[in-house]
């Protein structure tokens, strides 16, 4: 350790203190590593470098295998067995009965004609939600990213502003907006002030659906804005200069330079936001609880209710619904992998 370094470390008591704490943790960390090194060197001498490669991947594979892969396989078992017992040996094989129950409909456009009308309604609600929400999510994120990409003062600050709601938990977001939108809430007070009528936002099916879209875009757009912004900033500036020299106006530069070069990022954002939208649950759970009626019940809520919140646990139905949802997600995942593949 050199002398100048030492002197700078004692300039003020606060730095000295934090350096002391830093050194303390560092030496503890090093001590742990050294102790483990003795153990693992012994291990390495027995199993070799190749063996260590397996050793390093093992903890991850164990957790992954037990809590993700096994359940994925078991999910099929549940989907094809009946009864309300969660233990595997207490369940009887019923073939495709659960899936049939979910998808038996005289007319798929009329949920009332379905055996399990709640599920069909949930699927319909989810489908509409995904399409509308992803559209607005992309549009708002893109506009915000384009604006943040301009030569503005305080870009870092504004980037954080739009990102802040991403940190809030879905439960908090749901409760917060419920308070704002209630009958005697601030929004209704503003509506009355500007001469409009009071609206029961959470008692009307279409208003509730609309607000679910609005609050989910509000709470997550900052994340996609960041990704799009990174995409925009990776577009080389000389391309714009070249376009200017060719006499292109701003609009043409946007269509012929920005959009095509942003496409790979856009596709990733579309896929990510779609996958996320398909799983919408907790924010709505706190916001409307699925209501009014079944207006804002989505697939995950159906799974949750049948598997964990109803009087008789319909694990078979829940798993069959999971299976249906998983197959949709897998399609998106494959799409995502293809996109990443073409990117690299």
């Amino acid at each position, binding site marked *: 350790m050199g002398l100048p370094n030492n002197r700078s470390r004692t300039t003020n008591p606060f730095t000295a203190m934090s350096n002391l704490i830093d050194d303390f943790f560092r030496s503890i960390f090093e001590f742990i*590593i050294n102790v*483990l*090194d003795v153990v*693992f060197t012994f291990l390495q001498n027995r199993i070799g470098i190749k063996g260590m490669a*397996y050793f*390093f991947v093992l*903890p*991850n*594979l164990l*957790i*992954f295998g037990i*809590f*993700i*892969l*096994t359940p*994925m396989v*078991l*999910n099929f078992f*549940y989907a094809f067995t009946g009864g309300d017992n969660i233990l595997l040996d207490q369940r009887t094989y019923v073939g495709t009965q659960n899936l049939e129950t979910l998808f038996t409909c005289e007319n798929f456009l009329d949920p009332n004609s379905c055996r399990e009308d709640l599920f069909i309604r949930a699927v319909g609600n989810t489908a509409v939600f995904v399409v509308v929400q992803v559209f607005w999510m992309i549009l708002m994120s893109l506009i*915000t990213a384009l*604006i943040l990409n*301009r*030569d*503005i003062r305080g870009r*870092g600050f*504004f980037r*954080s*502003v739009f*990102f*802040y*709601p*991403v*940190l809030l*938990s879905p439960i908090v977001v749901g409760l*917060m907006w419920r*308070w704002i939108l209630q009958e005697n809430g601030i929004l209704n*007070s503003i509506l009355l002030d500007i001469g409009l009528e009071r609206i029961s936002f959470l008692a009307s099916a279409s208003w509730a659906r609309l607000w679910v879209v609005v609050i989910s875009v*509000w709470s997550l757009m900052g994340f996609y804005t*960041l990704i799009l*912004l990174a995409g925009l900033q990776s577009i080389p*500036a000389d391309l714009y200069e070249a376009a200017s020299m060719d006499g292109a*106006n*701003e609009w043409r530069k*946007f269509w012929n330079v*920005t959009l095509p070069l942003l496409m790979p990022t856009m596709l990733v954002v579309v896929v*990510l936001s779609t996958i996320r939208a398909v*799983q919408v649950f*907790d924010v709505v*759970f*706190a916001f409307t609880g699925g209501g009014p009626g079944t207006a804002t019940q989505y697939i995950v809520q159906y*799974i*949750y209710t049948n*598997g*964990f919140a109803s009087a008789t646990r319909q694990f078979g139905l*829940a*798993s069959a619904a999971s299976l249906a*949802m998983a197959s949709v*997600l897998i399609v998106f995942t494959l799409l*995502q*992998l293809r996109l990443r593949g073409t990117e690299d």
Partner: protein
Amino acid sequence: MGFLSNTNGRESLNWTDILTYLYLTLGTLLMFGPVLWIVFSSFKTERELYTFPPRLLPYQQELVTVAGYDDPLPLFEVPQEDGSLVTLARVRRVGLEAQMVDPANPAEIISADNTTLIPIERVVFSLANYQEGIQSFAFARYFLNSVIVTVVATFLTLLVNSMAAFSLSKYQYRGRNTIFLVIIGTLMVPISVILVPAFLIITQIGWNNNLLGVIVPGAATPTGVFLLRQYMLTIPDELLDSARIDGASEWRIYSQIILPLAGPALAVLAIFSVMWRWNDFLWPKIVLTRSELFTLQVGLNAFQGDLQIQWHLVLAMTVLTILPITLVFAFLQRYITTGIATTGMK
């Protein structure tokens, strides 16, 4: 259409600049407004919360202790016939009539028309909701559970995934690509899709109503493996080889060469992990049914789930729930936003 490209110079303020700053101002209002509204509301008395139209600041009626009365009495301004106002305290209401008393002269009861009374109010940021909330809502307990889950899970996530990523990026062995593909293949299969069987496994292990059941299942995240592996691929193999020549064990290479060099990627994963775990709801709700084990999110939801939602308490507890993550963000926002932007994935 200047706002569509990034080549706008800084000459003079033209209309696109005005539009830009207008958008940013409006955006700031929309992003922070709802949170601020909750914060202001959380200081209001129950009574003030239900007054319509709502006011921004938390007002409270002035109270005065009058000799001969046990409870403090609310103060009002009472219009007199000549148009002047007199400050009186209200003893009780009888229909439309209010029985008032002059605090300076407590013996004499003055009767007044209740509808003409103007309450005397002042702005008070009262912590009463917070105090009552903390008593009826086991905030400290839930907070501690959330902290334990977040810290332990993040540590475990970093350790387990960085080890796996090290193995998958720096060694050649049979089955390596298969392992990587299987992990990546489930990148988008979240735990909400496998709720029932995952719950069975937790039950079989005996981890329901145990924080371990919340912490461990999500620790091996495909996102983490992918992010760290991509980053570690950029670390040159020569570094490892020269360390081996110097006699370093594989463990030492991992802990003292790879980990420090992968710092930025580890930081991003840590941020993600903290965000996921602090805000996680569905899985903890299923695993934890005993209220002393609830995390903040589960507790908050159970708290509002009662038939009569007690907004004054729910609002205060909501503010307390978002406070820690807001503080962390305020200090680390630059790292968080640039970190996420550079890795560009979730």
